């Protein structure tokens, strides 16, 4: 087995929220990422899926050191990143880069495309000559499918897809080993999504990149990922290779997510039983006891409220955090009672 490039163990990122008044402070702690562990191997893609607000983006920011973790460890190529100085993290960002969700928002409107892509070069290699910088910028722009004469254009002159290409170029210009893609396609049209996803896959093959691909769209994740990590309320529910996730999901949450993917065929889509999840995700301010998913889980038993399920490693190397993962996959999903059942009563 190859050694992982990135080892994350028990990572915790907390936000402090002040809900007090002008004169009194009431701090609440939101456990946005709560004990997340996973590995990323060289040249593989790890997909991370979960609903909005489950801590995906916080996790991405923590990996880059943009958000300080509360605890746990991030080991990058054998070096610990948590608790190190800002200066050290800044150097490491040459090796770990990020692509943002909002393609145009992540580009400075007052900089030309050339300046934007050159920025990482200027900060990481201040001694590089102007000519070298320009050659590298033009090279990388062509690699992501932009023309070299577009170097003097401003971001607002580009479409969303083109802006995302610029974002990709900026991330790749310093030859990183790992690129964290924080929902890189969710702001784009479906037709453009495919282009960008395929571009990322091509570049990954060419440059031997490791990718962490965050999305809430399961079909996109299925297309790019080697392994998939499912998050819910800041915790890992299941980590498994792509085939197991899609064909034999073990965690009821994974199963619910996969059931909710629409089938692009109206006849079959209408014919299938509605098995969507009931209710909303509980507030991260006050997560349920035991298994965080139990309030929406149709298979929940008393034990789920009492005991936090461990992330258990199975025989095939996949991992799942559920007390009943051995029994549930065989059981049929209970039918909804016309959607008016209150599922999230604690």
């Amino acid at each position, binding site marked *: 087995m190859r050694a992982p490039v990135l080892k994350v163990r028990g990572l915790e990122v907390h936000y402090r929220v002040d809900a007090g008044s002008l004169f009194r402070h009431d701090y609440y702690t939101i456990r946005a990422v709560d004990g997340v562990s996973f590995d990323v191997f060289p040249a593989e893609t790890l997909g991370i899926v979960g609903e909005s607000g489950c801590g995906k983006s916080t996790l991405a*920011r923590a990996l*880059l050191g*943009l958000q300080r973790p509360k605890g746990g460890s991030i080991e990058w190529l054998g070096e610990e990143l948590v608790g190190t100085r800002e200066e050290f993290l*800044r*150097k490491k*960002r*040459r090796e770990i*880069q*990020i692509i*943002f*969700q*909002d393609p145009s*928002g*992540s*580009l*400075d*409107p*007052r*900089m*030309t495309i*050339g*300046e934007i892509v*050159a*920025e*990482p070069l200027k*900060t*990481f290699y201040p001694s590089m000559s*102007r000519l070298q910088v*320009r050659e590298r910028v*033009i090279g990388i722009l062509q690699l992501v499918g932009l*023309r*070299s*004469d577009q*170097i*003097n254009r*401003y971001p*607002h002159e580009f479409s969303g897809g083109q802006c995302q290409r610029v*974002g990709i170029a*900026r991330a790749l210009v310093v030859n990183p080993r790992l690129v964290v893609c924080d929902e890189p396609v969710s702001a784009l049209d479906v037709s453009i999504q495919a282009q960008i996803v395929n571009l990322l896959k091509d570049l990954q093959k060419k440059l031997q990149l490791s990718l962490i691909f965050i999305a809430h769209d399961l079909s996109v994740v299925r297309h790019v990922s080697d392994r998939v990590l499912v998050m819910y309320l800041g915790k890992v529910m299941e980590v498994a290779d792509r085939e197991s996730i899609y064909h034999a999901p073990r965690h009821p949450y994974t199963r619910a997510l996969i059931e909710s993917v629409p089938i692009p065929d109206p006849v079959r889509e209408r014919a299938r039983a509605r098995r969507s999840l009931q209710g909303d995700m509980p507030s991260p301010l006050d997560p349920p006891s035991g298994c965080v998913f139990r309030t929406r889980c149709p298979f929940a038993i008393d034990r789920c409220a009492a005991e936090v399920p461990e992330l258990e490693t199975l025989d095939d190397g996949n991992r799942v955090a559920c007390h009943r993962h051995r029994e549930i996959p065989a059981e049929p999903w209970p039918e909804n009672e016309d959607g008016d059942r209150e599922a999230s009563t604690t």
Partner: protein
Amino acid sequence: MSESTRDAFEQALDTREIRGRSLYVDAWHRLLKNKAAVAGLVVLAIMVVLVLVGPLLSQWDHEIPDWEHYSTPPSLETGHVFGTDAIGRDLFVRTMIGGQVSLLVGLLATLVSLVIGVTYGAVAGYLGGRADNVMMRFVDAVYAMPFMFFVILLMVVFGRNIFLIFIAIGAINWLDMARIVRGQTLSLKNKDFVEAARACGATEAQIIRRHIIPNLLGVVIVYVTLTIPQVILVESFLSFLGLGVQEPLTSWGALVNEGAQELETAPWSLMFPAAFLAVTLFAFNFLGDGLRDALDPKDRL
């Protein structure tokens, strides 16, 4: 377009040397395309040359009265093209000298408030939290201090000096600037592109310099064009109170003030300085508008 010309065209596109351009080079080209802004720029340039060279060309001096002509209307025969004031001083020379003072006060005081205000506001907004709180409460405290009291205090401590006027006016105006800049910075620092810059390894100082300040420029420039006229008027108010420039030195504000008192007997002594003041303020406003548009790439036509 035929196939071959299109090929040639595309080849030309490919082989043409591509030079990186920056916001400021681009902005300059855009500014030159804006007729009103260019007109403003030209008027200001002429104005500066005129107020500097004018007094040298004239046979009159700004302090020595022409004993034979008190309060005479403009006339080529007497040589007083703008007329004379109540004690016989040549109004043309006085308007030019007044222009030197007014432009200098306007530009320097604005520069002082610009430098202090932008730096202070950007730092407060960018740091946020407790630092922001402390810095902005200080601004509030200074704001609450009466302006006149502040100026008189300065005069008493340092004596009367034209540079004190710049400092006094600048030291009050930067408060507004700091507030405006801070508000903008607060909204800018949460933008994705700032986060992206951080992910690119930029230091905090680099982020402020490369991303925050260029994005503040639009608002700042508009405010500057409003500040220059305001400063010129504040200076005339100070002069009126006897705290600004002192006779025989003068300024546009002071001249307008004198002229207004003699409006019925000698209307020219109001008209000329007022016209110069108005034209200059117009020119600043046009230039400011043009700069704001030029510095915003999205407005490019």
